[in-house]
């Protein structure tokens, strides 16, 4: 346990609801250290280290470009097809990685959780940060493609961090749900990779969402990743104007997932050590 600065601390059944956020703030250093540990450990004892992040992005890019661009001949809207795909692959890979790591994080950290008291939200939080670092590294591929195709983005690329934040919040919100559920139900160990596999094709990663028939567009945007990926494409590729109802829906879905995720997590958090 870490310092409890207040003069007196009372532990009671069902108590301790107040002071949750200040406590989380006091533990920021542990959060920093756990994220630091995960980043350090991620590529230990690998020969090419961080380059794996780049290779993963490049390989996915290649496959999706061939399948959707060459074989299915999907429309690209005037930009080089690999660029279109990359603008989808980057946020998707971040989202998939963060969600996988988040959902496994509590179970993987079972030793810590059953031996030390700290706000459990730190653990999935640090899983997101690690993937964020990976994401930033794989953005190098984007720079490479810009040079290769002589493509210059305009002012809109400055809005990219906003969509990045949306992706972070979305994966954290869903990650909280899955991490907490995984503690009690290991079924999610199988559900998550499976759902992500489907999600890769259900989200506009390998194709532009303008390929979706107009009438279905809003329904399609119920998938919150649609808004994120569309946003990335808009910001990076000087693409067609944004589909605002879809973006709004994404925002709503994301906030909803975050709010309910936090609620569920906080409700179940106190029993983690007993159940895990």
């Amino acid at each position, binding site marked *: 346990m870490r310092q409890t600065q207040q003069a007196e601390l009372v*532990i009671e059944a*069902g108590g301790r609801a107040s002071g949750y956020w200040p406590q989380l703030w006091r533990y920021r*250093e542990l959060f920093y*250290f756990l994220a*630091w540990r995960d980043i350090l*450990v991620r590529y230990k004892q690998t020969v090419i280290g961080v380059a794996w992040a780049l290779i993963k992005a490049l390989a996915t890019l290649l496959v999706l470009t061939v399948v959707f661009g060459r074989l299915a001949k999907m429309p690209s809207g005037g930009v080089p097809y690999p660029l279109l795909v990359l603008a989808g692959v980057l946020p998707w890979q971040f989202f998939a990685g963060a969600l996988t790591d988040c959902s496994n994080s509590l179970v993987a950290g079972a030793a810590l959780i059953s*031996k030390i008291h*700290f706000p459990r939200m730190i653990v999935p939080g640090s899983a997101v940060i690690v993937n964020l670092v990976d994401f930033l590294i794989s953005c190098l591929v984007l720079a490479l493609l810009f040079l290769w195709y002589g493509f210059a983005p305009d002012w809109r690329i400055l809005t990219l961090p906003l969509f990045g934040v949306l992706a972070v919040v979305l994966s954290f919100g869903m990650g909280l749900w899955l991490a907490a559920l995984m503690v009690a*139900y290991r079924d999610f160990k199988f559900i998550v990779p499976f759902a992500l596999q489907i999600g890769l094709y259900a989200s506009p990663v390998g194709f532009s969402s303008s390929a979706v028939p107009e009438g279905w567009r809003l329904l399609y945007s119920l998938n919150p990743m649609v808004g994120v990926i569309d946003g990335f494409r808009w910001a990076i590729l000087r693409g067609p104007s944004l589909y605002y109802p879809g973006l709004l829906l994404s925002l709503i879905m994301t906030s909803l997932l975050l709010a309910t995720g936090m609620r569920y997590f906080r409700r179940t958090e106190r029993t983690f050590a*007993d159940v895990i």
Partner: protein
Amino acid sequence: MSKIVLQAQGIGKKYILRHQTPGAGRVTLRDKIVEHAASVGRWLSANTPARANPSREEFWALRDVSLKVAQGDVLGIIGRNGSGKSTLLKLISQITEPTEGRITLRGRVASLLEVGTGFHPELTGRENIFLNGAILGMTRDEIRRKFDQIVAFAEVEQFLDTPIKRYSSGMYIRLAFAVAAHLEPEILIVDEVLAVGDVAFQKKCLRRMNDAAREGRTIVLVSHNMLSIEALCTQAVWLHGGRVMGTGEPHRIISQYLRTAFSPLPQQDWQDKASAPGNDQVRLHRALIRPKGGTAADPVRVCDACVMEFELWNLRPNTYLYVGIQFYNDHGILIFESAPVDATPWLGKAFPVGLFKFACHVPANLLNAGVHRVTLVVSKNEDVLLHKEDDILVFEVADSTEKRGGWYGSWDGAVRPILAWDTQLLGADGAVTKLSNAG
């Protein structure tokens, strides 16, 4: 009276046990869905009374526990395995919530339920010091300030930049304990960590705990080692079945505990070869202790030689079974180990399948009076552990009044040998002066 820094009032912790049918894993989503469907069904047919689920059972790991610890106190918690000691520590350190009651803490708390919590094998010693320090509640500046002391305490200077997966287990434990030893909480909660490391290091840790207590820190600790409880603690609590059986002065509580904790087990038989303790290589059949020339029902006295017999089934041909025993006294101290080293024709031979009997002859005047526990260790070819049976024999060695000189009190120490003594009067020139019979 000094300030009360830790107070527990009527705390209890309930667990729900699920009895699983063979083949079923842990609670899965399917169970949950079925459960919900069933509750909807019950709700629809409201006249069906809700049945108690036979596969769920409540279990109170701790009940009605009240404690008061003043600043600077060292509280030792004793009790057998499963008596709720660890649960109590987990409640105090906020890892899990009590089901009932309340705990009041005044001051900064650090808990040490395991040495090296959060250590990552891939990280170097240096990195792990920072990580573990943060996990135990130190700030970065604090760790930086104490870094050199920690390294010196752990004696791992040369290996600071080596991943700790390459550390020996001793180095690993020393490093882990060194970080913990430099915590400066007002209340320190410690679970059985003294049972690790070599003797010199254990002494160092004990000294460190003593210092902490002298500096006015409050310590709550669990240990199976009664000597360390007695040496360190100012107060002891004895838990049994989740309830407090006694609180107070350590020596008194420990002797109460030891008296009841003992249930003699001078003989054990396992008739069924399929269900006896062991595995598909070796299974136990019988164990007993008896005074030489007597039976297991006879008491063993300090002045008696005794015989221990172990019978076990060897189920695999061509294995060399190597049997050893460990002798513990009632303070949990390992007095000695023994194993056949010579004088048996079977030594080092391949054993055929069959029932084997091993007898160990303990001479008279070796064991001290008191409760003894024997652990049997069976290994194959001297290096592969096949089976270990703790407390296979538990027996009391009765005091005897023979050959004690004029002394009628108890004799301290782990063993009680009779040694040869000479007494001589030396004259001024160093020559031995004879004791005259006329004296």
